[in-house]
């Protein structure tokens, strides 16, 4: 384990920025935090988490896939892929780190998504433990440990110092670049912080939430439950939950006519929208209840069934604070989970 004084954090950032683009959470003028590119003078935010999750770095909201140009009867296909530059995402929380595992299983299995894959190769994650979890946090429900975040480098921040531990080869390489600014140390302070964090986690209002009732193979138990009517009755279908969620990965592929060619691009889509997966015959989910049910069944039943029991939620709490009408996965789990135990 290595450490350095927080006074030197700007030197650390400058050193990292010499060889890679560095992104870290920065305070915005409305009080929230967002990932921004580091430059001289940027201050690392103290906020617990950002509004938009870091999945943006690997799976951006819009991405050009290819371009077409026609001339007469000829059509030219232009590959718009470019080699991704090396980049470092600093300050990622444990929940968001876990979301990358979930996205990897979708994009990097069987037919590898080269856009996503190239970014994953070039990205290095420096994750930080959460010293001040919020009441909306429930990462422990999904087996995530906020005191030991699992990025390429795990970091712990105290009032005066920051500690680093490399977990992967990419992490080792990055930490070696910082060797002149950091020094060897033992794990005492970090272990103290971990204990404090775990103590707070045991006081959180959502600490008892568990996933026992859910998982692969439970489709028939939940699909026809009458509780979905009640849960979805005031859902607006706006899609905010899907856009702030670090694990939601649905996208649409569209063509845009620029007037002098066509750009084929992909953009985030939301299963909450009425036009989602509309096919030639029409739409397969006509009511908001069906769309609502689909989203939560996907997170709690379908995804674990296809992915060795891994749930597609990381307990980050963004949907809890951002839903316009305060509906979220916790309410669904409690209501539906209770239904099974009756």
């Amino acid at each position: 384990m290595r450490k350095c004084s927080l006074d030197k954090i700007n030197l650390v950032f400058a050193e990292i920025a010499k060889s890679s683009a560095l992104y870290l959470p920065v305070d915005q003028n409305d009080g929230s935090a967002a990932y921004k590119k580091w430059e001289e003078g940027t201050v690392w935010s103290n906020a617990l988490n950002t509004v938009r999750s870091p999945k943006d770095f690997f799976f951006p909201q819009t991405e050009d896939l290819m371009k077409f140009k026609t001339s007469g009867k000829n059509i030219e296909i232009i590959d718009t892929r470019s080699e991704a530059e090396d980049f470092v995402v600093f300050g990622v929380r444990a929940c968001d780190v876990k979301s990358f595992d979930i996205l990897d299983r979708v994009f990097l299995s069987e037919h590898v998504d080269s856009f996503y894959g190239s970014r994953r190769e070039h990205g290095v994650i420096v994750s930080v433990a959460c010293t001040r979890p919020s009441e909306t946090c429930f990462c422990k429900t999904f087996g995530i440990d906020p005191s030991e975040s699992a990025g390429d480098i795990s970091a712990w921040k105290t009032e005066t110092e920051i500690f680093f531990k490399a977990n992967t080869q990419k992490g080792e390489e990055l930490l070696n670049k910082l060797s002149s600014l950091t020094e060897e140390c033992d794990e005492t302070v970090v272990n103290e912080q971990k204990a404090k964090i775990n103590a707070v986690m045991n006081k959180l209002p959502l600490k008892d939430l568990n996933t026992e009732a859910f998982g692969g193979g439970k489709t028939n138990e939940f699909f026809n439950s009458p509780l979905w009517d009640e849960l979805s009755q005031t859902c607006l279908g706006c899609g905010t939950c899907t856009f702030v969620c670090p694990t939601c990965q649905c996208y649409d592929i569209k063509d845009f006519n620029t007037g002098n060619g066509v750009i084929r691009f992909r953009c985030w889509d939301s299963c909450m929208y009425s036009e989602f997966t509309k096919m030639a015959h029409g739409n397969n989910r006509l009511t908001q209840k069906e769309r609502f049910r689909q989203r939560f069944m996907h997170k709690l039943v379908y995804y674990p069934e296809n992915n060795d029991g891994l749930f597609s939620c990381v307990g980050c709490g963004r949907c809890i604070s951002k839903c316009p009408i305060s509906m979220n996965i916790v309410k669904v789990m409690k209501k539906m989970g209770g239904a099974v135990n009756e």
Partner: protein
Amino acid sequence: MQVNEYKPLIVAFCCNWCSYAGADLAGNNRLNYPAEVKIIRVPCSCRVNPMFVLRAFQRGADGVIICGCHPGDCHYTSGNYYTRRRMAALFSMLDYLGIEKERTRVEWVSAAEGAKFAATMNDFVEKVTALGENKRLEDLRCKK
């Protein structure tokens, strides 16, 4: 002085009954106005949806002008009254967002006012040329 002077792209929505005929009259009288003005004929100036104006800017227009019959003389009786209200609201909103106010205009040109049409277009093109390219409402994907 550059050899290739900047020439703005102007889209002019002209109502079929008055201003389009006015443009035609300007042509008949051999009155010059810049070729950068691209006329789109609409049945009435109130056919112009604010989305058309935005799309014109998106696709590279540097200025948009809507020409219609004089208020009171609309071929469809009251169409241009609605245009007046709608465009007043739209232009005020565009100004509020920081889009230069010289880029948009509404002008009432009758079928007999060929000279006014030419003069209006000359004036509008001059004003927009002075402003330069539309950078604030452009869609980079649509640039050639």
